[in-house]
């Protein structure tokens, strides 16, 4: 392993420090938001079920809302830093694009047949699609959440969703999509545990088949 002082030519940074920091802040914020959100849902369930109490945060409705409306600032501020970095530093363009339907079809087939090899630092087409979709779900969950929080002051936004009651359903569906992403994300980390350490250290062994761009090394 290389140390920070002596960069080793056999390792490289695949996750820049900023990405690692926002990733873990986001993980904490998402867990707070989902667990407190489930507690709020339980106060007046939209559908014919409620969430188990052990999976909720806040203890009672007032506590759950306090958590939800505190953690939302962390989620949004952290998310804006990430999205700003993603666009300005070319992170999105470099890692999520291009996304071609042909590649997607090929990688999806391989993934389902468990033939899709993991290449550190390179996102396959299925991963690219998932990251793009979960980012869009993030935008949706925040916009619908703001509509529920401020259906009068932000009534223009709320009416985009067809009003308060529909915004609640959209907020739930966006949450469900994000939770599904997290489930797949965690399952993949379990299947390929070597992906976990680089999200902490940023470093991954140099892959013989990949060439590293200068930008990535600098990051």
């Amino acid at each position: 392993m290389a140390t920070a002082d002596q960069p080793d030519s056999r390792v490289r940074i695949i996750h820049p420090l900023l990405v690692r920091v926002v990733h873990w802040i986001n993980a904490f914020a998402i867990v707070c938001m989902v667990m407190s959100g489930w507690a709020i849902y339980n106060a007046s369930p939209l559908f014919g079920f409620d969430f188990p109490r052990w999976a909720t945060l806040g203890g009672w409705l007032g506590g759950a809302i306090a958590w939800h409306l505190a953690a939302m600032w962390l989620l949004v501020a952290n998310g804006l830093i990430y999205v700003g970095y993603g666009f300005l530093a070319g992170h999105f363009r470099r890692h999520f694009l291009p996304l071609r339907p042909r590649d997607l079809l090929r990688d999806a087939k391989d993934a389902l047949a468990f033939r899709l090899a993991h290449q550190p630092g390179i996102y396959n087409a299925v991963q690219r699609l998932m990251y793009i979709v979960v980012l869009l779900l993030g935008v949706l969950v925040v916009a619908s959440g703001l509509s529920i929080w401020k259906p009068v002051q932000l009534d223009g936004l709320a009416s985009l969703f067809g009003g308060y009651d529909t915004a609640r359903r959209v907020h739930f569906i966006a949450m469900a999509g994000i939770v599904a992403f997290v489930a797949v994300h965690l399952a993949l980390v379990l299947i390929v545990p070597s992906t976990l350490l680089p999200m902490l250290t940023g470093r991954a062994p140099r892959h013989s088949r990949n060439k590293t761009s200068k930008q990535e090394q600098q990051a």
Partner: protein
Amino acid sequence: MSDKKKNLPKNSELQPDLVQLQRRLFLRSGLSLGALSLLSGCNLQDGDQVDKVLWAMSRWNDRVQAMLFRPSHLAPTYPASMITKPFPFNAFYDADSAPEIDGDTYKLEVSGLVRDKRSWNLAQLRALPQASQITRHICIEGWSAIGQWSGVPFRTFLAHIGADTTAKYVGFKCADRYYSSIDMATALHPQTILALDFGQEPLPTEYGYPLKLRVPTKLGFKNPKHIAAIFVTNENPGGYWEDQGYNWFSGS
């Protein structure tokens, strides 16, 4: 619309939660915090510190909401055909326990930073200009229902009692031991009314007879029922739920 009614928690279902509140198990949830502290690697064992952060964030959210509040921006209104029937009952007690108030002897007390502290009876309140609205009542629990309320625009009433409208808060004390308070900007909002009627009838007992504050720019619990006293003040009077942890501003 009737399916909403079914989804409402009954008071008996809320009772365990209320007992919890009284035991001051406020924002803490040992199990979840334990799970979170494992996840984040932070020490969240000290619940009081976490509570302090959550209270501070709630006060921050009060300030943000006061900034977002647009004094003359109206809450959406709806046609009479969209009124929710039956309208859900919600309080910290069962509908049977709603206070029975004699309208003939009822007096509304007025105090604080006002010029005229004379009390008001129902006939005097009905003699003031009246306004009507069909708006959405949004409960902090998440459900909502559309209803019609009519009564005295609150800013008209504040003008009649010579309220100092540069004061920060208006507080309400209710006949059912409930209490709450709102910011002056919301008190002066054109849709904030001292409601006497629900639909075409005087407020039924369970919906706040004889007087309820209707504030379509705030959550339902900021719409006190059975109002017995109104006061204008610069000290935040808090509220029944607010003092236990519901966000004080709770604007919608």
